[in-house]
């Protein structure tokens, strides 16, 4: 069979994997919804949670589609579709593919068509290098959760602080990242403060949404505050970038 990166059979294989991931998500969703009902959680609130989570996901998901488009120039559409639906990310796939193609004496991104052997090598490097989480989570998740429960039994207050501290630690790394290029202002290049201003717009919109919800009693504002702040920050990035670039 003659090989092409966009061969229909590669789409079929990718489709099988994507379908499996989709079914897994539906499986866990149904399971959690049944449990929510069983322990008497408010079904109206749950419905709002579903709409809010779906709304919040749209913009980042469109960004993933753009990553598929970027990778498709060298790898075809089917493989990036599967890779970015299962574990992957643009930066990881690019690094893994570059390392594999370079090791075979080629140059990733040069536009030269891959042979079947090169393509399979790229797939293997991408797959094997990213698999840790998939096999490690089943090994450790139960034990870790038992540890968290036992910590809560020993000291409930510390257990709550522990969880908050983990969230803050994660957020602090991303807030730090937003400032990674600000030193460019000393070279009269103001592009480094674009992410800082975008973050500020998003934070102000979030605060304003909280205040408005409190003043008016309109709870739906709070329910959509996170997607609204995300989209406001992204929208603000367009004029801010035009201004400072």
């Amino acid at each position, binding site marked *: 069979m003659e090989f092409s990166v966009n061969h229909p059979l590669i789409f079929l294989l990718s489709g*099988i994997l994507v379908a*499996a991931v989709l079914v897994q998500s539906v499986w866990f969703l149904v399971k959690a919804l049944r449990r929510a009902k069983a322990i008497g959680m408010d079904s109206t609130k749950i419905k709002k949670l579903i709409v809010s989570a779906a709304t919040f996901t749209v913009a980042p*998901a469109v960004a993933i589609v753009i990553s598929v488009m970027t990778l498709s120039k060298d790898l075809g559409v089917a493989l990036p579709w599967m890779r970015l639906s299962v574990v992957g990310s643009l930066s990881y796939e690019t690094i893994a593919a570059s390392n*594999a193609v370079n090791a075979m004496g080629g140059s990733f991104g040069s536009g030269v068509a891959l042979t079947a052997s090169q393509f399979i090598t790229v797939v293997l490097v991408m797959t094997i290098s990213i698999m840790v989480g998939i096999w490690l989570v089943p090994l450790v998740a139960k034990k870790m959760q038992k540890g968290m429960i036992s910590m809560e039994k020993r000291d409930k207050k510390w257990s709550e602080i522990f969880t908050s501290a983990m969230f803050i630690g994660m957020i602090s790394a991303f807030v730090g990242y937003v400032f990674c290029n600000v030193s460019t202002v000393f070279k009269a290049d103001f592009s480094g403060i674009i992410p800082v201003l975008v973050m500020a717009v998003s934070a102000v919109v979030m605060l304003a949404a909280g205040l408005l919800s409190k003043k008016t009693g309109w709870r739906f504002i709070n329910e959509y505050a996170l997607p609204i*702040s995300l989209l406001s920050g992204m929208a603000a990035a367009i004029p801010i970038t*035009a201004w400072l670039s």
Partner: protein
Amino acid sequence: MKKELTYMDSVHRDGRIWSLSIMALMLLYPLALCLMFGAAPDGKGLLMGLIATAPMYWAVGVVETFTYIPMLGAGGSYLSFVTGNISNLKLPCALGAMEQMGVKANSEEGEIVSTIAIAVSSIVTTVIIILGVILIVPLTPVLNAPVLAPAFAQILPALFGGLGVVFVSRNYKIAIAPVALMMILFIAVPALNEGTVGIMVPVGVILTLIEARVMYKKGLL
């Protein structure tokens, strides 16, 4: 008599089955390609490619697993480590959902809310990517339009602005030191950037946990 499984036990059982099944499917994918096209991987390319890629991502994968499981909950972890995009999508989505529902991460309600949010996010992401793949020809010029590029380039700042202000203001005593430290580190160390922020997440988490423990022991929290 057969012992009845608790909800959490059944989440772990289903999660293990799903994770191992998807891992098997991922490994069968290249095998199927070999059989279909009658080709074998390039041995040297595979070995050198793995040596250049795997050690770093395996190390990051191990650290991420231990960092994210307590935040994502069990169901959320089994889903997120298969579908990916944890720090830039699944975890913020779960955090926003728990905040919206007013539930604690370490409660059963928190576990359920996190699982629902991550499952919905995974389904929406998968469906949008499918639509993007079907409509790739007409969508490519639209989504790659220069006017939209800055918006998609700034997703992380736009995401963590809204999320950060909620969590930092609520836990400002714990948050001031790690946020300030991370800002200084990212400004002062040129190697710290978008590509390395994932490595700094566990560093931020460990430092914040140590700081919180000291403050808690001294009665400051």
